């Protein structure tokens, strides 16, 4: 096997090895652990960059061997994988930096970072999986490796949230397994292939295919927090901020959405899905979730719960985009995979900063925080505006592309949903922004800590600013090659003309 075949394996192993090394390190080895963490993250980023360049030029990266009789363990890197892999690699680096600062002086750091790396390894595996079976393998690994992160605090509340999380995700996993096994029984081992497999499926298996599709979406929809399977997400907010950030931006929620993308494009094929008539109901469901999440977010008093419901709403943009038959809409959905990640991680970093620095958890307490923490608040503002879809930020590019795609697909009602959802987003984000900058602080902060010259710990200060800058840059420079939008268009080009 050539080096090309092994690159995906290396990318996967980087975080896996890092996890094992971190587990082995003693709790007190602070510097060494940080070095391992950051080193592995940088190495992975490098590998991903190499692969992105390779995929762009059309190089085939892949490795596969038979695992269980009849099914292969397959890793491969196509344009879609690289999108998710890049997201995972970039945000892992930033989240690691953030987490190092966030967990300063807290117990169980070795365990935390070990599982953290495992979690990222799983997302990498999900990105690079070459067939549904391999995807499922990493999908479940993700479930398991995030559980210790969710319950990290060890409080009753955290454990309860962890239980809810498990009930939802494991059940979803079981349904997914059933669907995959059934599909395997119908058609055998199906590698992810551009254009899908079922374009000329026999009419007599159509019913099974539709049922399997429903099961697949139900299984994946749990992680993607599609209504009514979203119940675990707001509860999981008890996790430490970097975990929530990772959960919402890259790992769990995205894994579900990414899985749906894979199923629609690379298993069924967009045309076959459209023929089977499964896209339109899914689009309606996604649209409903978009609105539902936003409406629920309106009434939240805790910042992180608000962000959680916002995620419920935002992730469905991706699903909606996938359901729009046509290249433009697809690009809109895919690009949101990245955009939502960047924006949401910014918001969660900021929420973590407020909590860590000023002890702010509730929205009521945020009055005037902009003066005390201008950098964080600026990042929060940019993230919030991005979520609303204010141009020229990342969210706008998504909305614009989605809207154009909807019109191209003759689904004009999507425009109304987009507008309504943006209005709702504005309705819950703008008051917070107002509080930050235009209210006077009400007395003292709940629990203030000070670090030298910066408004907060330097490890916490820079990551949100960086992601905020990225939010602006990916929006403003959307037409540059290798921008998320251009990459999404590349994927779509390859999907629609396999």
């Amino acid at each position, binding site marked *: 096997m050539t080096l090309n075949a092994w690159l995906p394996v290396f990318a996967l192993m980087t975080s896996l090895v890092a996890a094992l090394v971190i587990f082995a390190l003693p709790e007190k080895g602070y510097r060494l652990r940080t070095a391992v963490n950051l080193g592995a993250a940088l190495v992975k980023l490098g590998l991903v960059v190499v692969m992105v360049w390779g995929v762009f030029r059309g190089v085939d990266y892949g490795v596969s061997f038979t695992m269980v009789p009849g099914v292969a363990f397959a890793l491969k890197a196509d344009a879609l994988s690289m999108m998710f892999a890049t997201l995972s690699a970039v945000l892992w680096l930033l989240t690691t930096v953030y987490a190092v600062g966030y967990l300063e002086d807290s117990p169980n750091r070795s365990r935390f970072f070990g599982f953290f790396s495992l979690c990222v390894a799983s997302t990498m595996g999900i990105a690079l999986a070459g067939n549904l079976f391999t995807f499922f393998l990493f999908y479940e690994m993700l479930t398991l490796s995030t559980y210790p992160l969710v319950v990290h605090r060890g409080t009753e509340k955290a454990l309860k949230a962890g239980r809810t999380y498990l009930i939802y995700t494991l059940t979803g996993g079981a349904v997914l397994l059933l669907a995959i096994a059934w599909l395997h029984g119908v058609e055998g081992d199906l590698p992810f292939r551009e254009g899908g497999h079922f374009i000329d499926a026999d009419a007599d298996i159509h019913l099974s295919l539709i049922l399997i599709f429903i099961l697949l979406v139900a299984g994946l929809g749990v992680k993607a927090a599609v209504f009514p399977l979203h119940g675990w997400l707001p509860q999981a907010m008890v996790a430490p901020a970097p975990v929530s950030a990772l959960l919402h931006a890259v790992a769990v929620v995205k894994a579900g959405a990414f899985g749906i993308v894979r199923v629609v494009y690379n298993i069924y094929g967009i045309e076959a899905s459209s023929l089977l008539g499964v896209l339109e109901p899914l689009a309606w469901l996604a649209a409903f979730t978009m609105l539902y999440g936003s409406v629920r977010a309106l009434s939240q008093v805790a910042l992180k719960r608000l962000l959680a419901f916002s995620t419920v709403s935002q992730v469905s943009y991706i699903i909606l985009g996938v359901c729009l038959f046509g290249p433009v809409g697809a690009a809109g959905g895919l690009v949101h995979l990245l955009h939502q990640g960047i924006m949401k991680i910014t918001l969660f970093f900021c929420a973590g900063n407020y909590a860590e620095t000023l002890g702010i958890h509730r929205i009521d307490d945020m009055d005037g925080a902009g003066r005390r923490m201008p950098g964080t608040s600026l990042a929060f503002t940019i993230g919030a505006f991005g979520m609303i879809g204010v*141009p020229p930020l990342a969210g706008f590019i998504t*909305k614009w592309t989605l809207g154009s795609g909807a019109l191209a697909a003759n689904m004009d009602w999507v425009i109304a949903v987009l507008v309504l959802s*943006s209005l709702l987003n504005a309705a819950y984000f*703008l008051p917070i922004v*107002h509080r930050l900058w*235009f209210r006077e602080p009400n007395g003292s902060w709940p629990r203030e800590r000070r670090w030298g010259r910066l408004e907060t710990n330097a490890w916490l200060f820079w990551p949100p600013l960086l992601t905020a800058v990225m939010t602006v840059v990916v929006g403003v*420079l*959307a037409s540059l090659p290798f921008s998320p939008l251009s990459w999404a268009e590349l994927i779509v080009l390859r999907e629609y003309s396999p």
Partner: protein
Amino acid sequence: MMCPESVLVLLAVCLPLLYPAMALRAEGARAMRYVMPVLPLPALMLALGAEPGWQLELPWLLNGGLWAMDELRRLFLLLTAVLWTVAGIYAVGYLGDHHRRRFCVFWGLTLAGNLGLTVAVDVGSFYSFFALMTFAGYGLVVHEGTDEATYAGRVYLVMAVLGEMAILAGLLLASAAADSQLLTDLPAAVASASQRDLIIALLVAGFGVKAGLPLLHFWLPLAHPVAPTPASAVLSGAMIKAGLLGWLVTLPFGETALPGWGALMIVAGAVAAIGAAVLGVCQRIPKAVLAYSSISQMGLMVLMVGAAMADPGRAPVLFSVIALYALHHGLAKGSLFLSAGVSLPAGIMRRAAVWLLIALPGLSLAGLPFTSGALAKLAMKEGLSEDPLDFALAGYLSPLMTAGAVATLLLVLRYLWTLGGKLENRRNPPMLAAGWLASVGVSLVAFWWMPWEVEGLVKSPVWLPAPYQLWALVWPMLIAVALAGLTLLVARLVKQR
């Protein structure tokens, strides 16, 4: 290669955009306010110095950017740059210590948005700058932090967001119909689109929020009085015109006759012109009176927009007139708003001079002969004259214009009256005075020097009022004065009882 215009336009947009970065360091934050007048200067140079027709392609920007300049945009850019410059000078003297850094930051951002939207030709950057202006403008509105300001801000924001969304939907539909990301392709596509009426409705409503269309105007009389004076000047003088510009560049003028829409707009304009005057004269706060005056004046412009929609053949002429009127009104109204913040000096002669300078732009609005107002009014009259127009409501336009003129002067008189009770006696800060005087000067004098005779805009007939036209200008003013005098008399009598 980059031509000088490209450098200048990038500088014009990026300078105010990057200006907030000064706030990062303490010494920069202290120096911030002195930089404010400088910010619009590259834009001013661009508007005055560069010939229209250049364009700058920015293929990496959003969905592919294109910035360019034509006659219409040039006028709006000129208005924007001039107004922000004088307001900037004024603000140096005006600003207190209350959150000064924050104010400067939002000032810069709003300015960047306002300048940018006048040069943007692609949908993405136009909408981006529009949104930047809208949201940063919120910071100016609520700056004072009082309860009224917060309330006004909330109304402003709610309506602005609704407007933004309507614009988003409208632009999306229009650009999908045109299959293009350039504003220049939209009107023709909208005219022939299957969802023409929906698109037009969305765009009219969306930009109408900014332009103070009746029923979409609620934020205006709330926001203008509470905003700091220089901010209300630009809000009313320049930002309100952004909505107008939005209409002009997106709606299908000159493509097809839209009698229904034209009639609707004419009715809306009439309601705004007269209704706002009725409401405005009942206000007690000077700046609120001015806000209603803005709505009223915008009503007249909406009238012309409606006429242009109804009669495609007449649209090119009307475009020029609208632009001219917008320029005139923007400068005059800016000056009036700025005058709300000046103080009266000692000495009777000086006082009289100040009062005169306050009143003159107002009278200009009402069409005092030999002011920009007269020019604009006559141009409007010419543009809306009955004969060449061909639609149902054309006959009502002339009386409406006259009524508008009466309403305008009544509002100006009301403004002066309310202001009389508010002005304080003390020295003006020098920069504040300089800014105000500059605005008055620009409105009264510089207006004449501006490049009118450019191709395609005001060409013939000559707009200077001939003697026979004087009476046409003056008699509505006399009616207004008489009405005002009567009201005063009645008020006295009632008080004596």
